[in-house]
Protein backbone atom coordinates (compact mmCIF):
# COMPACT_ATOMS: atom_id res chain seq x y z
CA UNK A 1 0.00 0.00 0.00
CA UNK A 2 1.30 3.40 -0.85
CA UNK A 3 1.41 5.53 2.24
CA UNK A 4 1.82 8.90 0.64
CA UNK A 5 4.41 11.26 -0.61
CA UNK A 6 6.16 14.37 0.40
CA UNK A 7 5.06 16.97 -2.08
CA UNK A 8 7.24 18.49 -4.72
CA UNK A 9 7.80 21.60 -2.67
CA UNK A 10 9.61 19.28 -0.30
CA UNK A 11 7.23 19.38 2.64
CA UNK A 12 4.77 16.87 4.07
CA UNK A 13 1.49 17.92 2.51
CA UNK A 14 -0.83 18.13 5.47
CA UNK A 15 -3.46 20.08 3.55
CA UNK A 16 -3.71 17.22 1.10
CA UNK A 17 -4.25 14.76 3.93
CA UNK A 18 -6.90 16.98 5.47
CA UNK A 19 -8.74 17.37 2.19
CA UNK A 20 -8.76 13.61 1.82
CA UNK A 21 -10.26 13.25 5.29
CA UNK A 22 -12.82 16.01 4.86
CA UNK A 23 -13.76 14.78 1.39
CA UNK A 24 -16.47 17.38 0.91
CA UNK A 25 -16.34 19.95 -1.85
CA UNK A 26 -16.54 23.22 0.15
CA UNK A 27 -13.68 22.21 2.45
CA UNK A 28 -11.74 20.73 -0.42
CA UNK A 29 -11.64 24.16 -1.95
CA UNK A 30 -10.04 25.75 1.12
CA UNK A 31 -6.48 26.44 0.16
CA UNK A 32 -5.16 27.38 3.58
CA UNK A 33 -4.41 24.61 6.07
CA UNK A 34 -5.48 26.63 9.12
CA UNK A 35 -8.85 27.42 7.52
CA UNK A 36 -9.33 23.77 6.79
CA UNK A 37 -8.42 22.84 10.36
CA UNK A 38 -10.89 25.30 11.84
CA UNK A 39 -13.58 23.95 9.58
CA UNK A 40 -12.80 20.38 10.55
CA UNK A 41 -12.63 21.06 14.29
CA UNK A 42 -15.92 22.93 14.25
CA UNK A 43 -14.23 26.02 15.66
CA UNK A 44 -13.48 24.37 19.00
CA UNK A 45 -10.43 25.94 20.69
CA UNK A 46 -7.48 23.85 21.82
CA UNK A 47 -6.18 23.93 25.38
CA UNK A 48 -2.46 23.24 25.72
CA UNK A 49 -0.42 22.32 28.77
CA UNK A 50 3.33 22.67 28.92
CA UNK A 51 4.87 19.81 30.93
CA UNK A 52 6.95 20.76 33.96
CA UNK A 53 10.66 21.01 33.30
CA UNK A 54 12.77 18.20 34.64
CA UNK A 55 15.81 20.40 35.28
CA UNK A 56 15.40 21.75 38.87
CA UNK A 57 17.97 24.51 38.28
CA UNK A 58 15.57 26.22 35.91
CA UNK A 59 12.44 25.80 38.01
CA UNK A 60 12.22 29.49 38.97
CA UNK A 61 12.78 30.83 35.48
CA UNK A 62 9.85 31.42 33.14
CA UNK A 63 9.00 28.26 31.27
CA UNK A 64 11.10 28.50 28.08
CA UNK A 65 8.30 26.99 26.03
CA UNK A 66 6.00 29.74 27.24
CA UNK A 67 8.64 32.31 26.31
CA UNK A 68 8.91 30.74 22.88
CA UNK A 69 5.15 30.68 22.40
CA UNK A 70 4.92 34.30 23.57
CA UNK A 71 7.56 35.38 21.11
CA UNK A 72 5.83 33.42 18.43
CA UNK A 73 2.62 35.37 18.96
CA UNK A 74 -0.89 34.34 19.73
CA UNK A 75 -2.01 31.22 17.93
CA UNK A 76 -5.54 31.41 16.67
CA UNK A 77 -7.86 29.15 18.66
CA UNK A 78 -5.23 28.00 21.15
CA UNK A 79 -4.94 28.71 24.87
CA UNK A 80 -2.44 27.58 27.51
CA UNK A 81 -4.07 25.79 30.46
CA UNK A 82 -3.01 26.46 34.04
CA UNK A 83 -4.31 23.09 35.20
CA UNK A 84 -3.31 19.94 33.40
CA UNK A 85 -6.79 18.52 34.02
CA UNK A 86 -8.20 21.21 31.75
CA UNK A 87 -5.79 20.56 28.89
CA UNK A 88 -6.49 18.73 25.68
CA UNK A 89 -2.86 18.12 24.96
CA UNK A 90 0.63 18.24 26.46
CA UNK A 91 2.98 20.20 24.23
CA UNK A 92 6.69 19.48 24.56
CA UNK A 93 8.86 21.99 22.74
CA UNK A 94 12.42 21.01 21.89
CA UNK A 95 14.10 24.41 21.91
CA UNK A 96 17.41 25.57 20.53
CA UNK A 97 20.26 24.30 22.72
CA UNK A 98 18.05 21.85 24.59
CA UNK A 99 19.45 18.44 25.52
CA UNK A 100 17.64 15.81 23.39
CA UNK A 101 17.78 13.33 26.28
CA UNK A 102 15.98 15.79 28.57
CA UNK A 103 13.33 16.50 25.92
CA UNK A 104 12.81 12.78 25.38
CA UNK A 105 12.37 12.26 29.11
CA UNK A 106 9.81 15.11 29.18
CA UNK A 107 7.85 13.34 26.46
CA UNK A 108 8.09 10.04 28.31
CA UNK A 109 6.92 11.64 31.58
CA UNK A 110 3.96 13.35 29.89
CA UNK A 111 2.83 10.13 28.21
CA UNK A 112 3.33 8.12 31.40
CA UNK A 113 1.14 10.69 33.20
CA UNK A 114 -1.60 9.89 30.70
CA UNK A 115 -1.46 13.01 28.54
CA UNK A 116 -1.96 13.07 24.83
CA UNK A 117 1.40 14.51 23.86
CA UNK A 118 2.69 16.52 20.92
CA UNK A 119 6.39 17.08 20.30
CA UNK A 120 7.50 20.11 18.32
CA UNK A 121 11.20 20.42 17.53
CA UNK A 122 12.05 24.08 16.94
CA UNK A 123 15.72 23.65 17.83
CA UNK A 124 17.07 23.86 14.27
CA UNK A 125 14.70 26.39 12.75
CA UNK A 126 11.49 25.75 10.88
CA UNK A 127 12.75 23.32 8.29
CA UNK A 128 14.76 20.60 9.95
CA UNK A 129 14.82 18.46 13.10
CA UNK A 130 17.55 17.76 15.63
CA UNK A 131 19.20 14.52 14.40
CA UNK A 132 19.75 13.43 18.01
CA UNK A 133 16.12 13.76 19.10
CA UNK A 134 14.59 10.59 17.66
CA UNK A 135 17.44 8.35 18.87
CA UNK A 136 16.92 9.89 22.31
CA UNK A 137 13.20 9.12 22.10
CA UNK A 138 14.02 5.59 20.99
CA UNK A 139 16.04 5.25 24.20
CA UNK A 140 12.91 5.80 26.28
CA UNK A 141 9.73 3.77 26.60
CA UNK A 142 7.88 6.16 24.25
CA UNK A 143 5.92 4.50 21.47
CA UNK A 144 6.56 7.12 18.79
CA UNK A 145 3.45 6.18 16.82
CA UNK A 146 1.36 7.34 19.80
CA UNK A 147 2.57 10.93 19.69
CA UNK A 148 -0.22 13.36 18.84
CA UNK A 149 2.24 15.25 16.65
CA UNK A 150 5.90 15.23 15.79
CA UNK A 151 6.79 18.30 13.82
CA UNK A 152 9.11 21.26 13.35
CA UNK A 153 6.26 23.69 12.66
CA UNK A 154 4.03 24.60 15.56
CA UNK A 155 1.10 25.68 13.41
CA UNK A 156 1.11 22.45 11.50
CA UNK A 157 1.46 20.40 14.70
CA UNK A 158 -1.52 22.19 16.22
CA UNK A 159 -3.48 21.67 13.02
CA UNK A 160 -2.70 17.95 13.22
CA UNK A 161 -3.72 17.81 16.86
CA UNK A 162 -7.01 19.66 16.32
CA UNK A 163 -8.31 17.70 13.39
CA UNK A 164 -9.71 14.22 12.96
CA UNK A 165 -6.43 13.03 11.45
CA UNK A 166 -5.36 12.22 15.01
CA UNK A 167 -6.96 8.81 14.62
CA UNK A 168 -5.77 5.91 12.55
CA UNK A 169 -3.76 5.57 9.40
CA UNK A 170 -3.83 9.22 8.35
CA UNK A 171 -2.26 10.23 11.65
CA UNK A 172 0.55 7.67 11.36
CA UNK A 173 1.05 8.83 7.79
CA UNK A 174 1.49 12.40 9.02
CA UNK A 175 3.97 11.29 11.72
CA UNK A 176 5.95 9.17 9.27
CA UNK A 177 6.12 11.92 6.68
CA UNK A 178 7.27 14.61 9.10
CA UNK A 179 9.77 12.20 10.60
CA UNK A 180 11.29 10.98 7.36
CA UNK A 181 11.45 14.46 5.87
CA UNK A 182 12.55 16.71 8.74
CA UNK A 183 14.54 14.25 10.80
CA UNK A 184 16.01 11.70 8.42
CA UNK A 185 16.26 13.76 5.21
CA UNK A 186 16.74 17.35 6.30
CA UNK A 187 18.48 16.49 9.58
CA UNK A 188 20.86 13.78 8.42
CA UNK A 189 20.99 12.63 4.81
CA UNK A 190 20.51 15.80 2.76
CA UNK A 191 23.90 17.25 3.73
CA UNK A 192 25.60 13.99 2.69
CA UNK A 193 23.95 14.09 -0.73
CA UNK A 194 24.84 17.75 -1.13
CA UNK A 195 28.45 17.01 -0.22
CA UNK A 196 28.61 14.24 -2.81
CA UNK A 197 26.85 15.94 -5.74
CA UNK A 198 26.29 19.62 -5.02
CA UNK A 199 22.85 21.20 -5.45
CA UNK A 200 22.32 19.80 -8.92
CA UNK A 201 22.72 16.09 -9.69
CA UNK A 202 24.01 15.29 -13.20
CA UNK A 203 21.80 12.78 -15.06
CA UNK A 204 24.53 10.14 -15.17
CA UNK A 205 24.83 10.31 -11.37
CA UNK A 206 21.12 10.16 -10.61
CA UNK A 207 21.13 6.43 -9.91
CA UNK A 208 24.02 6.86 -7.50
CA UNK A 209 22.28 9.75 -5.74
CA UNK A 210 19.03 7.84 -5.30
CA UNK A 211 20.91 4.75 -4.11
CA UNK A 212 22.74 6.86 -1.55
CA UNK A 213 19.63 8.63 -0.28
CA UNK A 214 17.50 5.48 -0.22
CA UNK A 215 20.05 3.30 1.61
CA UNK A 216 20.85 5.95 4.21
CA UNK A 217 17.20 6.95 4.82
CA UNK A 218 16.21 3.28 4.98
CA UNK A 219 18.72 2.68 7.77
CA UNK A 220 17.33 5.63 9.73
CA UNK A 221 13.72 4.47 9.28
CA UNK A 222 14.68 1.07 10.61
CA UNK A 223 15.50 2.66 13.96
CA UNK A 224 11.85 3.61 14.59
CA UNK A 225 10.29 0.55 12.99
CA UNK A 226 9.48 -1.09 16.31
CA UNK A 227 8.10 2.11 17.81
CA UNK A 228 4.86 2.42 15.90
CA UNK A 229 6.16 3.77 12.58
CA UNK A 230 6.72 0.61 10.50
CA UNK A 231 7.39 2.16 7.12
CA UNK A 232 9.79 1.45 4.31
CA UNK A 233 10.88 3.57 1.37
CA UNK A 234 9.17 2.56 -1.84
CA UNK A 235 10.80 5.09 -4.16
CA UNK A 236 12.58 8.39 -3.93
CA UNK A 237 13.48 10.97 -6.52
CA UNK A 238 14.92 14.40 -7.19
CA UNK A 239 12.69 16.58 -9.34
CA UNK A 240 14.62 18.56 -11.90
CA UNK A 241 17.77 16.74 -10.85
CA UNK A 242 18.00 19.02 -7.85
CA UNK A 243 18.69 18.01 -4.26
CA UNK A 244 16.00 20.45 -3.08
CA UNK A 245 13.58 18.62 -5.39
CA UNK A 246 13.79 15.53 -3.17
CA UNK A 247 10.60 13.52 -2.78
CA UNK A 248 9.85 10.17 -1.19
CA UNK A 249 7.10 7.59 -1.43
CA UNK A 250 6.68 5.49 1.72
CA UNK A 251 4.89 2.20 2.14
CA UNK A 252 3.60 0.43 5.22
CA UNK A 253 5.74 -2.52 6.33
CA UNK A 254 3.32 -3.89 8.91
Amino acid at each position, binding site marked *: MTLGTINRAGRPDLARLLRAIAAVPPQDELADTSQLVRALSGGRPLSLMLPELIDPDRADAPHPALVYLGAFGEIDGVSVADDSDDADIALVLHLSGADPTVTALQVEAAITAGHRTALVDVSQGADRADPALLPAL*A*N*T*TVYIGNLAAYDVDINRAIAAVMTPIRDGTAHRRYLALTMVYYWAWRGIVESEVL*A*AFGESIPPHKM*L*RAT*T*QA*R*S*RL*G*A*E*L*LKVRGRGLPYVIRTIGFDGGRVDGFWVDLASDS
Partner: protein
Amino acid sequence: MKKLVTTPQSYDSNVARAQTLDASWYLDPAVYDREMERIFARTWQVAARLDQLAKPGDYLATEVAGEPIVLVRDQTNQLRAYYNVCPHRAGIVARGSGNRKALQCLYHGWTFDLNGCLLRTPGLEGTEGFDPAQFALQPIRVDTWGAYIFVNLDSGAAPLAQVWGDALTATSGIDLNQWRMVERAEYLIDCNWKVYLDNYSEGYHVPFAHPGIAKEMNLDDYFVDTWRFHSQQRVRIKPAGKGSAKDRRYPTPGENDFIKYHVMFPNFMIDEYPDNLSINVVKPVSVDKTLLSFEWYFKDEHDDATVTSMVRFADDVQYEDIEICEYVQRGLQSRAYNRGRFSARHENGVHHFQSLVLEYLDNDTVPLDTSLTPREDWNATLHTWRGTPARNAVAVP
Protein backbone atom coordinates in the same frame (compact mmCIF):
# COMPACT_ATOMS: atom_id res chain seq x y z
CA MET B 1 9.89 -14.63 -11.75
CA LYS B 2 11.12 -18.13 -11.25
CA LYS B 3 9.47 -20.76 -9.11
CA LEU B 4 11.23 -21.08 -5.77
CA VAL B 5 12.34 -24.63 -5.06
CA THR B 6 15.06 -24.88 -2.45
CA THR B 7 16.87 -28.19 -2.56
CA PRO B 8 19.72 -29.61 -0.50
CA GLN B 9 22.90 -28.11 -1.89
CA SER B 10 25.69 -30.18 -3.42
CA TYR B 11 28.91 -28.26 -3.07
CA ASP B 12 32.41 -29.18 -4.14
CA SER B 13 35.13 -28.41 -1.62
CA ASN B 14 37.50 -27.57 -4.47
CA VAL B 15 36.89 -24.07 -5.84
CA ALA B 16 38.16 -25.15 -9.27
CA ARG B 17 35.26 -27.57 -9.60
CA ALA B 18 32.61 -25.99 -7.39
CA GLN B 19 29.41 -24.27 -8.43
CA THR B 20 28.09 -21.27 -6.55
CA LEU B 21 25.16 -21.55 -4.15
CA ASP B 22 21.75 -22.08 -5.73
CA ALA B 23 19.86 -18.80 -6.27
CA SER B 24 16.96 -19.99 -4.14
CA TRP B 25 19.24 -19.85 -1.11
CA TYR B 26 19.22 -16.08 -1.43
CA LEU B 27 15.45 -15.83 -1.92
CA ASP B 28 13.76 -18.40 0.28
CA PRO B 29 12.51 -17.13 3.68
CA ALA B 30 12.82 -20.68 5.04
CA VAL B 31 16.56 -20.66 4.28
CA TYR B 32 16.84 -17.25 5.93
CA ASP B 33 15.11 -18.54 9.08
CA ARG B 34 17.44 -21.52 9.15
CA GLU B 35 20.48 -19.23 8.80
CA MET B 36 19.30 -17.18 11.78
CA GLU B 37 19.08 -20.33 13.87
CA ARG B 38 22.10 -22.25 12.60
CA ILE B 39 24.55 -19.42 11.83
CA PHE B 40 23.66 -16.22 13.65
CA ALA B 41 22.55 -17.94 16.86
CA ARG B 42 25.78 -20.01 16.91
CA THR B 43 28.45 -17.46 16.02
CA TRP B 44 29.90 -14.45 17.79
CA GLN B 45 27.89 -11.35 16.91
CA VAL B 46 28.67 -7.69 17.60
CA ALA B 47 26.13 -6.40 20.10
CA ALA B 48 27.54 -3.01 21.08
CA ARG B 49 30.64 -0.89 21.41
CA LEU B 50 32.55 -0.97 24.69
CA ASP B 51 32.13 2.78 25.14
CA GLN B 52 28.35 2.28 25.23
CA LEU B 53 28.78 0.37 28.49
CA ALA B 54 31.63 2.26 30.09
CA LYS B 55 30.44 2.56 33.71
CA PRO B 56 28.99 0.14 36.26
CA GLY B 57 25.21 0.19 35.89
CA ASP B 58 25.24 1.01 32.16
CA TYR B 59 22.80 -1.09 30.17
CA LEU B 60 21.78 -1.39 26.53
CA ALA B 61 18.86 -3.28 24.99
CA THR B 62 19.39 -4.60 21.49
CA GLU B 63 18.69 -7.58 19.24
CA VAL B 64 20.88 -10.41 18.00
CA ALA B 65 19.69 -13.09 15.57
CA GLY B 66 16.13 -11.86 16.12
CA GLU B 67 16.41 -12.34 19.91
CA PRO B 68 15.92 -9.41 22.30
CA ILE B 69 18.95 -9.14 24.57
CA VAL B 70 20.19 -6.72 27.20
CA LEU B 71 23.84 -5.97 27.94
CA VAL B 72 24.87 -4.61 31.33
CA ARG B 73 28.03 -3.66 33.15
CA ASP B 74 27.48 -4.86 36.69
CA GLN B 75 28.59 -3.19 39.92
CA THR B 76 31.89 -5.12 39.84
CA ASN B 77 32.61 -3.77 36.34
CA GLN B 78 31.90 -7.13 34.72
CA LEU B 79 30.15 -7.19 31.34
CA ARG B 80 27.08 -9.40 31.24
CA ALA B 81 24.41 -10.23 28.71
CA TYR B 82 20.92 -11.68 29.17
CA TYR B 83 17.91 -12.47 27.08
CA ASN B 84 15.70 -9.40 27.43
CA VAL B 85 12.79 -11.59 28.41
CA CYS B 86 11.16 -11.60 31.84
CA PRO B 87 10.77 -15.18 33.13
CA HIS B 88 7.33 -14.26 34.48
CA ARG B 89 5.27 -13.71 31.32
CA ALA B 90 7.87 -12.79 28.70
CA GLY B 91 7.82 -9.01 29.04
CA ILE B 92 11.00 -7.00 28.44
CA VAL B 93 13.24 -5.87 31.30
CA ALA B 94 14.98 -3.02 29.48
CA ARG B 95 14.37 -0.67 26.59
CA GLY B 96 16.90 1.69 25.04
CA SER B 97 19.97 2.42 27.14
CA GLY B 98 20.96 4.18 30.34
CA ASN B 99 22.34 3.55 33.80
CA ARG B 100 20.50 1.58 36.48
CA LYS B 101 21.13 -0.40 39.63
CA ALA B 102 18.49 -2.95 38.64
CA LEU B 103 16.44 -4.05 35.64
CA GLN B 104 12.67 -3.93 35.93
CA CYS B 105 10.16 -5.63 33.69
CA LEU B 106 7.98 -3.06 31.93
CA TYR B 107 4.99 -5.39 32.16
CA HIS B 108 4.46 -6.33 35.86
CA GLY B 109 7.46 -4.78 37.56
CA TRP B 110 9.50 -7.87 38.39
CA THR B 111 12.94 -6.54 39.29
CA PHE B 112 16.36 -8.12 38.76
CA ASP B 113 19.82 -7.10 39.92
CA LEU B 114 22.55 -6.65 37.34
CA ASN B 115 23.70 -10.22 37.97
CA GLY B 116 20.33 -11.34 36.63
CA CYS B 117 18.96 -12.52 40.03
CA LEU B 118 15.31 -11.86 40.82
CA LEU B 119 15.04 -9.20 43.54
CA ARG B 120 11.36 -8.24 43.79
CA THR B 121 8.05 -9.67 42.60
CA PRO B 122 5.22 -7.27 43.46
CA GLY B 123 1.84 -8.80 44.35
CA LEU B 124 2.86 -12.43 44.41
CA GLU B 125 0.96 -13.20 47.63
CA GLY B 126 -0.83 -16.54 47.46
CA THR B 127 1.46 -18.05 44.83
CA GLU B 128 2.61 -21.43 46.13
CA GLY B 129 6.02 -23.08 45.87
CA PHE B 130 7.63 -20.07 44.20
CA ASP B 131 11.43 -20.21 44.19
CA PRO B 132 12.99 -16.89 43.08
CA ALA B 133 16.24 -18.68 42.25
CA GLN B 134 14.44 -20.45 39.41
CA PHE B 135 13.43 -17.13 37.87
CA ALA B 136 16.72 -15.40 37.10
CA LEU B 137 17.33 -13.73 33.76
CA GLN B 138 18.80 -16.20 31.30
CA PRO B 139 22.49 -15.37 30.65
CA ILE B 140 24.20 -15.17 27.26
CA ARG B 141 27.90 -15.63 26.45
CA VAL B 142 29.71 -12.31 26.17
CA ASP B 143 33.24 -11.48 24.99
CA THR B 144 35.19 -8.54 23.56
CA TRP B 145 37.54 -7.82 20.67
CA GLY B 146 38.99 -4.34 20.20
CA ALA B 147 36.31 -1.76 20.87
CA TYR B 148 33.44 -4.23 20.45
CA ILE B 149 31.26 -6.36 22.67
CA PHE B 150 30.26 -9.67 21.12
CA VAL B 151 27.63 -12.15 22.26
CA ASN B 152 27.00 -15.74 21.29
CA LEU B 153 23.59 -17.32 21.86
CA ASP B 154 25.21 -20.77 21.79
CA SER B 155 26.13 -21.52 25.40
CA GLY B 156 28.61 -24.17 24.22
CA ALA B 157 30.46 -21.96 21.74
CA ALA B 158 34.26 -21.70 21.90
CA PRO B 159 35.63 -18.35 23.13
CA LEU B 160 35.86 -15.59 20.52
CA ALA B 161 39.67 -15.55 20.69
CA GLN B 162 39.81 -19.24 19.73
CA VAL B 163 37.29 -18.90 16.92
CA TRP B 164 38.98 -16.01 15.17
CA GLY B 165 40.12 -13.28 17.54
CA ASP B 166 43.68 -14.53 18.02
CA ALA B 167 44.02 -15.45 14.38
CA LEU B 168 42.78 -12.06 13.25
CA THR B 169 45.16 -10.23 15.55
CA ALA B 170 48.08 -12.44 14.49
CA THR B 171 47.46 -12.42 10.75
CA SER B 172 46.49 -8.77 10.44
CA GLY B 173 48.56 -7.20 13.17
CA ILE B 174 45.59 -4.95 13.95
CA ASP B 175 45.32 -3.76 17.52
CA LEU B 176 42.11 -1.79 17.48
CA ASN B 177 42.92 -0.18 20.82
CA GLN B 178 45.49 1.95 19.00
CA TRP B 179 42.89 3.37 16.62
CA ARG B 180 40.34 6.14 17.13
CA MET B 181 36.82 6.01 15.71
CA VAL B 182 36.00 9.17 13.76
CA GLU B 183 32.79 8.46 11.84
CA ARG B 184 29.86 6.07 11.66
CA ALA B 185 27.15 5.43 9.06
CA GLU B 186 24.49 2.83 8.36
CA TYR B 187 22.96 1.72 5.06
CA LEU B 188 19.90 -0.39 4.31
CA ILE B 189 20.44 -2.49 1.19
CA ASP B 190 17.82 -4.38 -0.80
CA CYS B 191 19.65 -7.70 -0.96
CA ASN B 192 20.18 -10.90 0.95
CA TRP B 193 23.04 -10.68 3.46
CA LYS B 194 25.03 -13.34 1.58
CA VAL B 195 25.00 -11.27 -1.61
CA TYR B 196 26.90 -8.55 0.24
CA LEU B 197 29.35 -11.05 1.77
CA ASP B 198 29.93 -12.82 -1.57
CA ASN B 199 30.71 -9.48 -3.16
CA TYR B 200 32.94 -8.38 -0.30
CA SER B 201 34.94 -11.62 -0.39
CA GLU B 202 36.56 -11.09 -3.77
CA GLY B 203 38.47 -8.46 -5.74
CA TYR B 204 37.56 -9.90 -9.12
CA HIS B 205 34.97 -7.16 -9.62
CA VAL B 206 37.24 -4.27 -8.65
CA PRO B 207 38.49 -3.22 -12.13
CA PHE B 208 34.93 -3.20 -13.49
CA ALA B 209 32.90 -1.86 -10.58
CA HIS B 210 35.33 0.36 -8.66
CA PRO B 211 37.33 2.53 -11.06
CA GLY B 212 38.39 4.88 -8.27
CA ILE B 213 39.97 2.34 -5.99
CA ALA B 214 41.20 0.14 -8.87
CA LYS B 215 43.65 2.95 -9.70
CA GLU B 216 45.34 2.40 -6.33
CA MET B 217 45.83 -1.35 -6.75
CA ASN B 218 48.30 -3.59 -8.51
CA LEU B 219 45.58 -6.06 -9.45
CA ASP B 220 48.06 -8.71 -10.62
CA ASP B 221 49.15 -8.82 -7.02
CA TYR B 222 45.67 -9.34 -5.51
CA PHE B 223 45.32 -12.57 -3.49
CA VAL B 224 42.88 -14.03 -1.00
CA ASP B 225 44.21 -16.12 1.89
CA THR B 226 41.81 -18.22 3.89
CA TRP B 227 41.91 -19.66 7.40
CA ARG B 228 39.30 -21.70 9.29
CA PHE B 229 36.79 -18.90 9.92
CA HIS B 230 38.28 -15.88 8.21
CA SER B 231 39.72 -14.73 4.93
CA GLN B 232 42.04 -11.91 4.04
CA GLN B 233 42.32 -10.17 0.68
CA ARG B 234 45.57 -8.34 0.16
CA VAL B 235 46.60 -6.19 -2.75
CA ARG B 236 49.79 -4.24 -3.14
CA ILE B 237 49.34 -0.50 -3.71
CA LYS B 238 50.56 0.67 -7.10
CA PRO B 239 52.82 3.73 -7.31
CA ALA B 240 51.30 6.56 -9.35
CA GLY B 241 52.57 6.99 -12.88
CA LYS B 242 53.79 10.28 -14.31
CA GLY B 243 51.09 12.93 -14.12
CA SER B 244 48.52 10.73 -12.41
CA ALA B 245 49.42 11.45 -8.79
CA LYS B 246 46.72 14.08 -8.39
CA ASP B 247 44.00 11.48 -9.05
CA ARG B 248 45.39 9.12 -6.47
CA ARG B 249 44.76 8.64 -2.77
CA TYR B 250 48.05 6.82 -2.12
CA PRO B 251 50.36 8.09 -4.92
CA THR B 252 53.67 7.13 -3.33
CA PRO B 253 53.18 3.89 -1.42
CA GLY B 254 55.89 2.23 0.60
CA GLU B 255 57.20 -1.12 -0.57
CA ASN B 256 55.08 -2.91 2.01
CA ASP B 257 51.91 -0.83 1.69
CA PHE B 258 48.93 -3.08 1.09
CA ILE B 259 45.19 -2.69 1.11
CA LYS B 260 43.61 -5.59 2.97
CA TYR B 261 40.06 -6.74 3.45
CA HIS B 262 39.31 -9.17 6.27
CA VAL B 263 36.14 -11.26 6.51
CA MET B 264 35.44 -12.86 9.88
CA PHE B 265 32.69 -15.40 9.40
CA PRO B 266 29.85 -14.76 9.17
CA ASN B 267 29.43 -10.98 9.10
CA PHE B 268 32.28 -8.95 10.61
CA MET B 269 34.65 -7.24 8.19
CA ILE B 270 37.63 -4.92 8.34
CA ASP B 271 38.84 -2.68 5.51
CA GLU B 272 42.49 -1.92 6.16
CA TYR B 273 44.22 0.97 4.37
CA PRO B 274 47.64 2.46 5.12
CA ASP B 275 46.22 5.41 7.07
CA ASN B 276 42.81 4.19 8.25
CA LEU B 277 40.58 1.21 8.71
CA SER B 278 36.86 0.63 8.88
CA ILE B 279 34.82 -1.95 10.69
CA ASN B 280 31.94 -3.19 8.65
CA VAL B 281 29.15 -5.29 10.18
CA VAL B 282 26.34 -6.85 8.16
CA LYS B 283 23.03 -7.51 9.91
CA PRO B 284 20.33 -9.43 8.07
CA VAL B 285 16.97 -7.67 8.39
CA SER B 286 14.93 -10.04 6.23
CA VAL B 287 15.59 -12.43 3.36
CA ASP B 288 16.04 -9.48 0.98
CA LYS B 289 17.07 -6.59 3.24
CA THR B 290 20.41 -6.10 4.92
CA LEU B 291 21.63 -3.42 7.30
CA LEU B 292 25.24 -2.47 6.98
CA SER B 293 27.09 -0.44 9.58
CA PHE B 294 30.44 1.21 8.96
CA GLU B 295 32.74 2.71 11.55
CA TRP B 296 35.88 4.51 10.39
CA TYR B 297 39.08 4.60 12.46
CA PHE B 298 42.28 6.59 12.17
CA LYS B 299 45.47 5.78 13.99
CA ASP B 300 47.01 9.22 14.03
CA GLU B 301 45.58 12.69 14.40
CA HIS B 302 44.05 13.88 11.16
CA ASP B 303 42.30 17.11 10.34
CA ASP B 304 38.60 17.11 9.53
CA ALA B 305 39.25 17.57 5.81
CA THR B 306 41.37 14.41 5.63
CA VAL B 307 38.77 12.41 7.53
CA THR B 308 35.95 13.75 5.35
CA SER B 309 37.88 13.00 2.19
CA MET B 310 38.64 9.42 3.33
CA VAL B 311 35.02 8.77 4.27
CA ARG B 312 33.90 10.13 0.88
CA PHE B 313 36.43 7.89 -0.86
CA ALA B 314 35.15 4.83 1.05
CA ASP B 315 31.54 5.92 0.54
CA ASP B 316 32.01 5.96 -3.25
CA VAL B 317 33.17 2.34 -3.13
CA GLN B 318 30.33 1.52 -0.77
CA TYR B 319 27.60 2.90 -3.04
CA GLU B 320 29.15 1.14 -6.03
CA ASP B 321 28.90 -2.12 -4.07
CA ILE B 322 25.32 -1.39 -2.99
CA GLU B 323 24.27 -0.89 -6.61
CA ILE B 324 25.96 -4.16 -7.61
CA CYS B 325 24.42 -6.12 -4.74
CA GLU B 326 20.92 -4.83 -5.52
CA TYR B 327 21.34 -5.74 -9.21
CA VAL B 328 22.55 -9.20 -8.21
CA GLN B 329 19.57 -9.72 -5.89
CA ARG B 330 17.25 -8.93 -8.80
CA GLY B 331 19.27 -11.21 -11.09
CA LEU B 332 19.01 -14.08 -8.62
CA GLN B 333 15.22 -13.83 -8.96
CA SER B 334 15.38 -14.28 -12.72
CA ARG B 335 14.25 -17.52 -14.29
CA ALA B 336 17.41 -17.18 -16.40
CA TYR B 337 19.76 -17.86 -13.48
CA ASN B 338 20.26 -20.68 -11.05
CA ARG B 339 23.93 -21.37 -10.26
CA GLY B 340 27.27 -20.11 -11.54
CA ARG B 341 30.95 -21.10 -11.45
CA PHE B 342 33.88 -19.56 -9.62
CA SER B 343 37.10 -18.05 -10.85
CA ALA B 344 39.55 -20.35 -9.05
CA ARG B 345 42.18 -17.60 -9.16
CA HIS B 346 40.04 -14.78 -7.82
CA GLU B 347 37.01 -16.14 -5.98
CA ASN B 348 38.38 -18.60 -3.44
CA GLY B 349 37.23 -16.17 -0.71
CA VAL B 350 33.62 -16.45 -1.91
CA HIS B 351 33.94 -20.23 -2.04
CA HIS B 352 35.36 -20.19 1.49
CA PHE B 353 32.43 -18.10 2.74
CA GLN B 354 29.78 -20.19 1.00
CA SER B 355 31.41 -23.41 2.26
CA LEU B 356 31.13 -22.13 5.83
CA VAL B 357 27.46 -21.20 5.30
CA LEU B 358 26.75 -24.77 4.24
CA GLU B 359 28.88 -26.27 6.97
CA TYR B 360 26.98 -24.36 9.66
CA LEU B 361 23.61 -25.19 8.15
CA ASP B 362 24.37 -28.88 7.79
CA ASN B 363 26.26 -29.68 10.98
CA ASP B 364 25.47 -29.57 14.67
CA THR B 365 29.13 -29.14 15.54
CA VAL B 366 31.64 -27.09 13.58
CA PRO B 367 35.19 -28.03 14.66
CA LEU B 368 37.84 -25.41 15.39
CA ASP B 369 41.21 -25.12 13.72
CA THR B 370 43.48 -22.50 15.22
CA SER B 371 46.28 -22.83 12.65
CA LEU B 372 47.75 -19.50 11.53
CA THR B 373 48.98 -20.88 8.21
CA PRO B 374 46.83 -19.84 5.24
CA ARG B 375 45.15 -22.75 3.50
CA GLU B 376 46.34 -21.71 0.04
CA ASP B 377 49.98 -21.36 -1.01
CA TRP B 378 49.45 -18.90 -3.85
CA ASN B 379 53.04 -18.93 -4.97
CA ALA B 380 52.88 -22.68 -5.60
CA THR B 381 49.33 -22.65 -6.94
CA LEU B 382 49.95 -20.00 -9.58
CA HIS B 383 53.05 -21.71 -10.87
CA THR B 384 51.22 -25.04 -11.01
CA TRP B 385 48.53 -23.45 -13.15
CA ARG B 386 51.08 -21.75 -15.37
CA GLY B 387 53.39 -24.77 -15.54
CA THR B 388 56.35 -22.74 -14.30
CA PRO B 389 58.68 -23.50 -11.39
CA ALA B 390 57.71 -21.83 -8.11
CA ARG B 391 59.86 -18.93 -6.97
CA ASN B 392 60.92 -18.56 -3.38
CA ALA B 393 57.95 -17.24 -1.47
CA VAL B 394 57.97 -13.50 -0.84
CA ALA B 395 57.06 -12.56 2.69
CA VAL B 396 53.90 -10.53 2.92
CA PRO B 397 53.49 -8.35 5.97
